[in-house]
């Protein structure tokens, strides 16, 4: 039994509807910066986004081409496996449906790959059907490098390590294989409402 620290409450928000908070999470005001490595700085004229793998010919967009794709505004809550939840975040990005348009859904899985070598795996069904975006704006401004800019994956219905920062493409796979955190024992799917943090959950 831990000792209670007199008068200590932390900086959590407690004025929120509990139905919006997944089990084991608490709500923060700020936007913590988490990463598995240093922040890469790729000049925009060298940035590309690529869809490859079980899709036939790889597709690649330059930064300008990417911005010219139809974009969507996304208002959502985000949930980090380290137990913080941030409510009411505002994003703009390209729907993954747009990027994967016409891909054979029987492939089953994607692996997101990123500058700096980070990867994360997702079932195709979790990144299609209006569930995921490649976001390049946060709160009406270009996404800051520390938060994953120029562009990050946004899959808000899963724990936030799936929303890969500095994303450069998706590899479409006919089998599931674990990404960077998944192969250290983090859950392959990571649904915060089922508290799927680790393999055993």
């Amino acid at each position, binding site marked *: 039994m*831990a*000792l*209670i*620290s*007199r*008068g*200590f*409450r*932390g*900086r*959590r928000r407690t004025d929120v509807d509990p139905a919006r908070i997944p089990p084991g999470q*608490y709500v923060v005001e*700020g936007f913590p910066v988490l990463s598995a490595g240093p922040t890469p700085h790729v000049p925009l004229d060298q940035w590309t986004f690529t869809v490859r793998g079980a899709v036939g010919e790889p597709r690649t967009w330059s930064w300008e081409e990417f911005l010219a794709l139809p974009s969507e505004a996304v208002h959502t809550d985000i949930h980090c496996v380290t137990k913080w939840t941030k409510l009411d975040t505002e994003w703009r990005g390209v729907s993954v449906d747009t990027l994967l348009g016409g891909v054979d859904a029987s492939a089953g899985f994607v692996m997101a790959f990123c500058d700096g070598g980070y990867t994360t795996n997702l079932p195709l069904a979790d990144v299609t059907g209006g569930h995921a975006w490649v976001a390049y704006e946060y709160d009406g401004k270009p996404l800051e490098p520390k938060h994953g800019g120029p562009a990050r994956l946004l899959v808000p219905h899963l724990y936030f390590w799936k929303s890969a920062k500095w994303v450069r493409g998706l590899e479409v796979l006919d089998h599931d294989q674990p990404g960077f955190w998944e192969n250290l024992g983090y859950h392959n799917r990571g649904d915060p409402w089922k508290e799927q943090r680790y393999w055993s959950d």
Partner: protein
Amino acid sequence: MERLAPRKTPLVWRVATVRDVRTESATARTIVFDVPDWPGHLPGQHVDIRLTAEDGYEAQRSYSIASPPADHALELTVELIDTGEVSPYLVEELQRGDQIELRGPIGGYFTWQPADGGPLVLLAGGSGLVPLMAMLRHRDASGATVPVSLLVSARALPALLYRDELSCRARDGVEVSYTLTREAPSGWTGWNRRVDAEMLRAVGADPQRRPLVYVCGPTGFVEHVAELLVGLGHDPHAIKTERFGPSGG
């Protein structure tokens, strides 16, 4: 000279009682703890602190030990981080007689003791001074005569820690220099700029003297100073560094 090794005691949470608190600057204070069965520590080591709210919510942070091993009480100097979660509690809320959980000592890498020799060059950014202060206090308490040069970099005068104590310790082979990176008051005799190579040479960080160099501060400070030291010809492996970030808050 005998070299002390950290004692092999299991790392357990202990209940520490606040014996006293002292204001150190506009934004920092020293908390003096009584810790039952404290196993002793080396200068430069830190402790983990764990706070628990009534509903079971926990927050944990690391803080450097400021007191030398010979002191009977354990002292931590904590700098307030406005957006922090633990430091506002430690700096503004905690009172004499309160109890918190603490474990340590931790970390034998960023430590110094007289048997390690010198000369010592200690480079502090902001509250990165705290573990270096433990080294300096231990040098004096143990009667060592190792030459020490300490450079303290801070934003402004009100943020400087231990100023009176350092002016007393600045003798018998101990030199203390300051640089303020933002506004300096009129009549200021220290430097008034970011640490640079010229400053490092002036405080004796010349590789030909073969000093033991310790750098502690926020990540940006440590990276900058370590780069300058390597530029002066130091072997990167001979520079001991300790970084803290807002997550130390």
